């Protein structure tokens, strides 16, 4: 199965929101534990608070077009997550929403993702290789652009998250640890991969 415009526009948005909120909430303790190791131990709490707030508005968003919904999700995340991840994930969703047409093709999605990831990097003054969520987002965008299946994209995301382990953090709170940040998976990379996996599953089902 490959991803196409049909799949995108057929997506069950409430199901998508539920799936993402579910995975984040289920993994909140794991994300917090990752953040305790090289950060301040709130990433799971932050993401859970944000995506549960999004879920609470899911019904209200149900009828609206995809770009609107994504923008609303982004705004909600900005207003509820806080920390570094709030503005960054918020910017990600807001930007995808801004860039995506109502009935997007795969190429539209790849392009929107590319722009949104640039917006995240601009907001974070960061780039690939600095042990952040970007180290998952860039390869995910590449995989989408290359036409990989949702499941394969999710595998790429998982691998990319795991691959942050040997990196030394240059951005984010973990950078304060210097070399001591080496040997741990970046929490934001892990949460990004979880979101990608959840989205991929829903897309596969709606295909």
């Amino acid at each position: 199965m490959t991803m196409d415009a049909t799949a995108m526009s057929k997506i069950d948005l409430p199901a998508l929101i539920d799936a993402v909120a579910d995975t984040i909430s289920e993994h909140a303790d794991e994300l917090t534990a990752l953040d305790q190791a090289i950060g301040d131990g709130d990433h799971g709490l932050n993401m859970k608070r944000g995506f549960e707030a999004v879920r609470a508005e899911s019904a209200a968003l149900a009828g609206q077009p995809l770009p609107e919904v994504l923008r609303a999700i982004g705004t909600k995340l900005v207003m509820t997550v806080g920390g570094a991840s709030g503005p960054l994930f918020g910017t990600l969703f807001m930007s995808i929403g801004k860039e995506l047409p109502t009935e997007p093709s795969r190429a539209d999605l790849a392009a929107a993702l590319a722009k949104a990831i640039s917006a995240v990097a601009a907001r974070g003054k960061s780039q690939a290789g600095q042990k952040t969520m970007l180290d998952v987002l860039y390869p995910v965008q590449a995989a989408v652009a290359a036409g990989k299946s949702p499941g394969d994209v999710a595998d790429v995301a998982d691998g990319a998250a795991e691959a942050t382990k040997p990196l030394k953090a240059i951005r984010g709170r973990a950078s304060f640890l210097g070399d001591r940040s080496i040997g741990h998976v970046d929490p934001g990379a892990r949460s990004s991969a979880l979101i990608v996996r959840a989205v991929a599953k829903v897309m596969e089902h709606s295909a």
Partner: protein
Amino acid sequence: MKKFINAVDTVLTESLDGFAAAHSDILMLGGGHKFIRRKTLKPGKVALISGGGSGHEPLHGGLVGHGMLDAACPGQVFTSPTPDQMMEAAAEVNTGAGCLFIVKNYEGDVMNFDMAAEMSEDVMQVVTNDDVAVEDSLYTTGRRGVAGTLVVEKIVGAAAEEGLALKELKELGDKVNRATRSMGVALTSCTVPAAGKPNFEIADDEMEFGVGIHGEPGRRRAKLQPADAIVEEICAAIASDFGAALKGDALLFVNGFGGTPSMELYLIYNSARKMLEKRGVRIVRSLVGSYVTSLDMAGCSITLTMLDDRVASLWDAPVHTAALRWGL
């Protein structure tokens, strides 16, 4: 986790309610617990707004009041507040002369305050980054803002009370920040209520050197040393960072992280004062206490701010907040 709480989700709001009730002569809460603001605003004065994750009390809410902040935005524990908090605070306390945001240099705080600034009018920002434990290079996110932030808020707060304009206050804040260096050491971590366990485990004979204020590990773990040895290492780091600027009058601020008794803080102060004076600084102002905390973390930081006469007199200017009071 041993804490006085009812439920992890309501710790912050219950505590803020108590804080507002206990200090109702000075301050009040904004809607939805989004900010703490001065009860009485001074028309025509630039509004000072700070904020950050909770768990550092009395910073920043305890510094709202005459001579310091007009509003403080409390995030969740150790989590930067969201932009709507600063936007709503700014809308409420800006009496026309503009707003100065005082932001500790953490990417979360910087990004959230940036977003709020982009969506508000007439806002400038001072970003504090006094922590010499963190290398300031292209390969880091820069230094953290730690206890020195209180010094910036006090000095800029006094100047705002005098009627300085937004741009002048921004320049003063940047100047005081540049004249301020801090470094911290922790004997224990701390427990974020929602996380339920300490951020790190540490043996009975170990300490974390170069920690920030979020219960996070520091630059290096070391064997526990006598106080003088610890203070010497911190003072050396601060002094070498100041370089030639280390001379003349200074403010020495020994800050407890929450779990360290004042007996130990004054012992540290005693040691630091001697070591810094030996290096040629004159300690003419002092502050000792747990003002910029990490919940219940045992540990302390040493902050040194070089003073000129103008800055010293702004430090002395009257202040009346929950946590800092003199001259009024």
